[in-house]
């Protein structure tokens, strides 16, 4: 049976269909999960896709963390379930306290939609498992508040415990330490600003995002088997 991935949809989310398409190409079966859902037991993994959850009002992710589904996502993560937040989903995960740090507006104070090159730093996460460290991937970013910030202690901890999983080679937003993606201590909760689902076909300019999505689907299958 194909790995079953729940794709969380808040009002204002807009990358849910793209996430489904990406997961399908990577071999999983995606299902949309409305933000009022409180049970995720039937899912093998969860994706919180990009967009503007609840209009990004107050600040990105600040309202979404109060949607009923986030309590369920918290439980799912605590039980070791794979969770990936992409772009706005990453912002939601930091607001919900499932990942450390926060986001501020891009350096230059402008929205940026552009291809970036990221480097895989460590493979101890559900989205980089099995990849070669140092691998370079061409994946687009698309955000206004994409500059990752955290205090020095957090940064030191992230580095020391190998939680920085992706770094920009051409930092497009001023993120601290060129951070493009991080994982929690256990590696089962991941946030990344680039959109791997937008790089799943050479027709669209790059298929590099598939490496991450495939790794995620395989990790999710392992967790289920385990």
């Amino acid at each position, binding site marked *: 049976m194909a790995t079953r991935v729940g794709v969380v949809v808040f*009002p*204002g989310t*807009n*990358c849910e*269909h*793209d996430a489904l*398409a990406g997961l399908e190409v990577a071999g999983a079966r995606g299902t949309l999960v*409305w933000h009022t859902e409180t049970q995720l037991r039937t899912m093998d993994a969860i994706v919180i896709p990009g*967009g*503007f959850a*609840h*209009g*990004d*009002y107050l600040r990105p992710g600040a309202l979404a963390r109060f949607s009923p589904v986030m309590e369920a996502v918290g439980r799912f993560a605590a039980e070791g379930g794979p969770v990936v937040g992409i772009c706005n989903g990453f912002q939601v995960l930091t607001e919900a306290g499932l990942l450390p740090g926060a986001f501020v507006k891009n350096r230059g104070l*402008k*929205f*940026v*939609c*552009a291809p970036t090159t990221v480097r895989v730093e460590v493979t101890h996460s559900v989205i980089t498992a099995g990849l070669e460290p140092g691998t370079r991937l061409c994946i*687009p970013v*698309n955000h*206004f508040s994409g500059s990752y910030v955290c205090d020095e202690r957090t940064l030191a901890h992230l580095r020391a415990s190998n939680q920085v999983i992706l770094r920009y080679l051409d930092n497009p937003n001023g993120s601290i330490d060129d951070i493009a993606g991080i994982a929690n201590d256990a590696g089962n909760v991941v946030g990344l600003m680039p*959109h791997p*689902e*937008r790089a*799943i*076909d*050479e*027709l*669209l*300019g790059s298929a590099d995002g598939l490496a991450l999505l495939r790794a995620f689907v395989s990790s999710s299958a392992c967790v289920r088997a385990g």
Partner: protein
Amino acid sequence: MSVRAAEEPLHRALGLTDDELDRIVGLLGREPNALELALYGVMWSEHCSYKSSRLHLRRLPTAGDRVLVGPGENAGVVDAGDGIAVAIRIESHNHPSAIEPHQGAATGVGGILRDIFTMGARPLAVMDPLFFGSPDDARQRWLVEGVVSGISSYGNSVGVPTVGGELTFDSCYSSNPLVNVLCLGALPVDRLVLGRASGAGNLAVLLGAATGRDGIGGVSILASAGLGGGSGADAIKRPSVQVGDPFEEKRLIEACLALLDAGLVLGIQDLGGAGLACATSETAARGGVGMDVDVSSVPRRELGMAPWEVMTSESQERMLAIVTPGAWPAVEELCRRWEVRAAVVGTVTDDPSGRLRVLDRGAVVADVPASSLADGAPLYDRPLREPAGLDARRADDPTFDAPAGDSEADLCALLCDPSWVYRQYDSQLFLNTVVGPGADAALLRLAGPGLPPSERGVAITTDSAPRWCAIDPRQGVALVLAEAVANLACVGASAVAVVNCLNFGNPEHPEVMWQLSETIDGLAAACRALELPVIGGNVSLYNESTGADIDPTPVLGVLGLVEKLRRRPPGMGWVDGDASTVVLLGARRAPGALGAPGAPGAPGAPSPAAHPLGGSTWAVTCRSRRHGALPPLDLVAHREVVRLVTRLVADSVGGGDGLLDAVHDVSGGGLGVALAEMAISGGVGVRVESLEGHRELFSELPSRIVVATRRPDELVGRARDAGVPAELVGVVGGSRFVVDGLVDLGMDELAAVWSGALRARLEPV
């Protein structure tokens, strides 16, 4: 008291003339009350009624095999094949953007999206042609920053990618910028729905935002009168600009598409200009029914609103749906899920004369025939006059100005990377964008949530050339259409339909009406020659400030289709190695000139206009020369060039043999800019030989497309078979951009000039 007796007559304050008031009295058989007058004021505004342009617009061809819905509905719709229809519309939001650039542009995006999903289509792509005064002026930079951020914040958040546009700077837009917005959507053919009411007893349901006092009189006070000019004069009109909420619109899109998918809606119409007055009268008039609407049922966000304010408010993010009483509970339930407000505000009636009755807590406060609001405005055949001195201006041609000047410096002055703008737009959502902003045309997969599977692609371009239209609007608009069709060919698409946004000055100036009439005739003739229907449009008049009209600015959006989209088209960047050759397809010299096909061939001096420069970007930008004769256009020859290139690129994107390494049409800035852009895009230099001086480098003679190929003999053979002239003009390679005798620049320098040009002007240190 008669409305005429007031000290400052109400009808004039509402933008109606004395004659128009007489006409209303004639239609009603009595004096209108103040509310009724307010309804006529907005519905008979230039913006809503097209009263100055409608007689002329009738001359445009609108029929075609693929056309499912032509002009007059919220959007034009064509059959794209595979059970998919494509809806497209273009609109202006010029005056709101002049006064409050961020919200003006944002609500322009919001409005055009509603026009598309009103038809049952999911909005899939937006394009934004923008026109400002010189960015060397701080106020213009404020406008650019505001407009671009408005499009970015609304479009990105609402979740519709912005896949292209245009950016033009010209002093004629200093006090009156133009912000045009085009939207393309797609739908399963069987979901097509029209904005009409039907079935007595059915409910008129208002969906979306609560109604406030924002945007009252937007269509009449703001959009249908000139601007005062200067920096502060129009600030008092700021309350007439609406405020957008993309989050509300996002939920509204999802809710409306879900309602349509569930078959719960009989007809639907967006609330844009003229608000509820427009939506109720148009749906009733189109359906040939009456409607009762009770303003006390309209959810409001402000206290104490009078009926006329409720009826004419242009509060954003609202839709009017016609549903049966039986479907209402399901409609309510679905809207609750999407957190979209839904309120029954009226009922469809079988009134034999199709009356729109406005009630306030049950009491009738206005009672007029709906069709008299929607279609009853007078049609003006305003006087036309050719602007004085036009012949002299055309004769004052810069082609033979001497000396030629420094072509290398001129080329650099014409290079501009627009990515400062488009990097701020999400151009990729929905995973359809195969070719995005910055190319000749956008090319998208024809796919989206809820659409049947298809291998087809859809291409879209917007084009304009006010510098041409100022000299000769008839020829100018034909050249614009020709360029648009060539742009589509560069991504392998065949043009199928046209939409237009006609931005002009004050129609009460006979010269402006002449420009409008000439433009429409020129467009009609060119469309007929290319067998393209015009399926929708928008006319924006009164683009003037302190009495000075803008240059005539028809903006064309042209839709193209690709049968099989399996691979990316070659693009404009050529690649290094294997002796890639640069070939110019299309006649190198103007017809009749020496060396051109059919020319007398007499030896001696080159005949005058082999490489005409009248109206060229070079003449305007580098020499401040705005006069001269426009280049000739042979639409029959143009079609042959376009067909050949379309076929070659379509072969390639269909997965077949790729004969071309690169393709780019010659347009603004001429061959010089086309070659430079190809070199910069590919990151590889070129050596071009034996061009006929700066004239050939910068002429914008149409119907020419530059390609690069590693099989030049085969290409020239294909061109010969198609009856298309083809000449080898250069060889790709190296790290220098060389045009013998004219330009010799390192690629790094060329690329730096190109990429830094716009930023340097918009963000001066």
